[in-house]
Each structure stands twice: as structure tokens, then as C-alpha cells.
């Protein structure tokens, strides 16, 4: 089959690879109908997460049609149209049974890598380096899905492939952040990042009862989407004093909940941004926490900060004094997709969650390298490229 492979730092290529096979009784094989680029892929592409191997198939956010089922699969049949959580979770361990699916004990066959880096291993993830299992990705004609009864969900009639694909990761990541941040009714929520995950976090915050939601970015086309399709207020941090603006909008207090949906390659303004860039490029820190610092600084006393963007390991100049003295609650998570995908599909079907607008650049898989170039450089207002290899 054809697949889009990582071939080196900032290099990808479409190659012929072996078809996937059923390896465990709980597996299904999907014919991929839609698979999208994710901002976190750029960390792999750029070599910031080094445990990639030449030839690894990219893509972790996808949906498709079941073409083969393992003998222990009960929920799915050949022909089902399903969307799949990007994290691979067994459904049986203590973490899965407490709906903390990304922390699954049994989904990552290479646990020692993340144990060494983070103190404990977390679940596996499709195509997210050999640290998270080394599973082949979805930018391919077919993909193997382990634990399919746990991680694959039937797409309702009336929900298109392109609308459903974002339930796989972007929307469920956004929901994870908004839900676990502890939003109370009428709270003001600020979201750093107007990419797909930030937009989904903002919409989830509204549906969970927030009174005012502000999305922060520098890219006008993304801010426009956040206003038009999400219904959020927006701020361009390059044209205003962000903290002063947020204080003014919140009676001088600051947002009750701040969600950081940017991650390790944050942009910013001023010397702080260049300091972070230099340190990261020299590998003196692995991540650029520019947006996270702002979120902590802007948050009201006693408020909540949620780290939703992907971070790898170490950051510098972390504002611990602000965090401690303002009595903030800081929490983070990868996505617990299995917990949120059913309700996200219901929201999409009911028309109160827009996702299709995120797919600004549908493309055939053969154009994968060009797609990643556009996505990385945000050319032509690119928010997400969606490959449709099997349609």
C-alpha cells in the first residue's frame, strides 16, 4: 500500500509499504477514508521528539471503514464507518476503567522510554514516535487498530468523513482540556492557540457552561475561524498588550481558566521568544513554553491553568513564583479520546459543534510532502490538511 513516511528531519515521502495485518484478536484493519495533519506532528517532523526512525508512517488522527476484524472483536463488523481515538488503550487497566485512557498501562509496547523520561509510561499513540509505541500511522491506505472495541466508534449517519475525523484527536483533546480544567458556570476561559485543538477547547468550554471565551493567536485566518465557527471572542497577541486586555475584560481579575493549546513550538513577541528559540535550537531546553508562561501570568488568583499543548521534556524560566503565590491549580493531559468521542459525535450530529471548517486543505495522499510543507509554514491559510486515501 501507499503511505506517507517520515524520512528525516523536515523530510517526508510517499512510499510503498507492507499492508498491515491483524496481530491481536482485538484488532481491526481499517481502510483509511480521512486522516489529518496535527500540529503535534510538526514536533516529530522537526526532530524535537527524536525517537523517530526513517520509514515510520505518519498520522494519528483518522477515520475509516472496517475491512477486517480480529476474532475477539465484538462491537464492529466489516463495513462499519468508524473514527478512532489517537491513543491506544486496553480498556481493562485501572486507568482505563477510570476513563484516563491516555494513561493506559497496556497500550505502549515500549514503556521504558517514557518511564525514563517522565517517571511513568503512558499509553501508546498511533505514529507518535517509538517512545509512544512505534505504531504505524494513518497517512496510509490501511491501518491496524488494536483494542478496537475500546478505541473505535461508529460514525452516525449524516456526519461526514471530514467532520468525523476531528473527533479522533483535535476535538477530544479540546474536550479533555476544557472538562478537566474544572470550568464553572459563567467562568471566563482564555485559550492560547487558535489551531484546531484550541478552537475545539473553546467550543467545549462554551458547551460546558463558560460565560466568556477568548481565543488568542497571531494568525488572522485562524482567529476568524474562532469567531465565525466557534463563536468565541479573539485576541491577536501581536497587536495588543495581552495581559492588560484580559484584565480589562475580567474586571481586573484575569481569566478563571487558562487553557494552553500551543505546546513546545510556541511563538511570541519580544526577547522572551528569541531567548526560547535560541535555547531550544541549541538543545539547552527541549520545549518553548512562551504561551504557558503567559497563561500562568494572566490567570486570576486561585484560577486554573490547563496544559493541553504537547510538551516533550524540559523548559526554562518556568514562572513557579506566580503559580505558587497566586495559588493556581495546574493540570495537564494527553487526550482521553475514548471518554469524549461519543458525546463529540453527538454534538457534531446535532449541529452544535462545527469541525468541517478546520479541513482547509483536502488532498490526495500522493501530495503528502507538499501538504506538510503547507501545514508547517501555514501557507494559504492552512489550518489542517486532510488526506483521503481510500475515498
Amino acid at each position: 500500500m501507499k503511505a506517507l513516511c517520515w524520512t528525516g528531519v523536515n523530510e517526508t515521502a510517499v512510499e510503498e509499504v507492507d499492508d498491515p495485518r491483524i496481530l491481536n484478536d482485538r484488532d481491526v484493519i481499517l481502510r483509511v477514508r480521512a486522516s489529518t495533519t496535527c500540529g503535534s506532528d510538526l514536533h516529530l517532523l522537526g526532530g524535537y521528539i527524536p525517537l523517530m526512525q526513517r520509514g515510520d508512517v505518519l498520522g494519528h488522527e483518522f477515520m475509516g471503514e472496517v475491512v477486517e476484524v480480529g476474532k475477539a472483536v465484538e462491537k464492529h463488523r466489516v463495513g462499519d464507518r468508524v473514527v478512532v481515538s489517537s491513543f491506544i488503550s486496553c480498556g481493562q487497566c485501572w486507568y482505563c476503567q477510570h476513563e484516563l485512557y491516555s494513561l493506559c498501562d497496556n497500550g505502549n509496547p515500549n514503556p521504558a522510554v517514557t518511564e525514563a523520561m517522565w517517571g511513568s509510561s503512558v499509553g501508546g499513540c498511533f505514529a507518535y514516535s517509538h517512545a509512544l509505541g512505534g505504531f504505524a500511522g494513518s497517512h496510509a491506505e490501511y491501518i491496524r487498530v488494536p483494542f478496537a472495541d475500546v478505541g473505535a466508534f461508529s460514525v452516525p449517519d449524516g456526519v461526514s468523513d471530514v467532520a468525523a475525523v476531528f473527533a479522533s484527536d483535535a476535538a477530544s483533546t479540546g474536550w479533555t482540556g476544557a472538562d478537566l480544567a474544572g470550568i464553572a458556570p459563567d467562568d471566563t476561559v482564555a485559550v492560547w492557540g487558535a489551531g484546531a485543538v484550541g478552537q475545539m477547547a473553546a467550543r467545549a468550554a462554551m458547551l460546558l457552561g463558560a460565560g466568556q471565551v477568548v481565543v488568542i493567536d497571531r494568525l488572522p485566518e485562524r482567529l476568524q475561524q474562532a469567531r465565525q465557527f466557534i463563536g468565541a471572542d479573539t485576541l491577536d497577541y501581536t497587536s495588543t498588550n495581552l495581559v492588560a486586555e484580559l484584565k480589562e475584560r475580567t474586571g481586573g481579575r484575569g481569566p478563571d481558566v487558562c487553557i494552553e493549546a500551543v505546546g513546545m513550538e510556541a511563538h511570541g513577541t519580544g526577547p522572551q521568544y528569541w531567548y526560547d528559540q535560541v535555547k531550544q535550537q541549541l538543545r539547552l531546553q527541549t520545549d518553548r513554553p512562551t504561551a504557558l508562561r503567559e497563561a500562568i501570568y494572566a490567570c486570576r488568583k486561585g484560577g486554573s491553568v490547563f496544559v493541553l499543548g504537547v510538551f516533550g521534556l524540559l523548559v526554562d524560566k518556568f514562572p513557579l513564583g506566580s503559580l505558587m503565590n497566586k495559588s493556581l491549580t495546574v493540570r495537564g493531559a494527553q487526550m482521553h479520546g475514548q471518554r469524549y468521542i461519543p458525546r463529540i459525535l453527538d454534538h457534531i450530529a446535532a449541529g452544535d459543534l462545527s469541525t468541517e471548517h478546520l479541513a482547509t486543505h483536502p488532498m490526495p495522499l500522493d501530495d503528502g510532502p507538499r501538504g506538510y510543507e503547507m501545514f508547517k509554514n501555514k501557507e494559504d491559510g492552512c489550518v489542517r490538511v486532510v488526506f483521503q486515501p481510500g475515498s
Partner: protein
Amino acid sequence: MSAQGQISEPVPGQSTFSGRGWRLGAGAIGGLVAGAGLLVARRFRHDGSDEEPETANRWHVVTVNRSPDEVMPDGTPPPALRALGDLVEVEVRPAQQARGTELRARVRQPEPGTAKSVLERLGGTDPRQAVRAALREDKQLIEVGEVLRLEPIPHGDRGHTPGGKLVETVTKRAGGEGLL
């Protein structure tokens, strides 16, 4: 290795192992219900001894989301640990807060020193690697019923780069390494 189990300190009203199977009294059932969430410090050894082992090696432990009698029925270690024979000592104890069962194993023989350990770990012959891998495998077998397989992975041209070789080596050893 004996396949028989025995509790080290019998406690009235709780489950015991008699040598041929678990015996649950009415008081034990009540105790299990009422005592859920408490750490019970009794240990169930597979080797039939109450004595402290001859070595003081560190225990490697996984918590299995099942009851002790599902993890080590009749005092018999689960298959991957059983396959290690006399290399390891194995025991189970209830985990705190209804989190299941702590499955513990440690190497009987003296562990290699730091320098030797580095060489043995690189060569994949440090006995602790086998213990860690067995614990993880048994946890999956008990919780899920099978071990998640990865190979063969569909992939493009590997190119045999030095970085790729390093990743291969790291992942080949990943099941036997870590903090367990």
C-alpha cells in the same frame, strides 16, 4: 520452583491459601467487602516459605487491576514469571484503594554491580530485564488476555541510519528496562 502458595501470617477472617486452593470463610467475604481500599501487608509467596529471602534485591512491582486470587491462583505465579523458574521470588499483596493487586518479583541471585550491569543490560543479559519484561507481560495477560504485539510494523525504507539503529536498540530493550 514450587507451585504451591502459602500465606506468611494468617489473619482471622481473611482469605488463606491451604496448599490446594483458596479457602474463603464468611468472615473473609465480609472482611473483603468492608476492608476494600486498605493495604493488607500479608504476602503470598509462591515458594511456600515464610522466610525473608537470602538476597535484599529490590522488588520490581506492577499493580494488576484484578484480585489476588486472579493474579496468583493457588499461589501459582502467572506464566511469564513462572517461566523464569528459580531465578525469581514472586509474591502478591492487595493494592491500596481498591487498585487491584501488587504483583512483585525480585531476582534471587545477587544483582550485578554497576559496571557489569551496564554491559549486561546492553547485551540483554541482566536478569532484571527478564523480570521486568515478565511482569509487564503477565499484567497484560491477566488484565487483557493477550500481549499487545507490534511486529511486523508497516514501514518505508529504513535506510540503516545511525539514528535508526539507536532507536532500534532502545526499543528492543524497552520491555526489560525502566523503573519497575
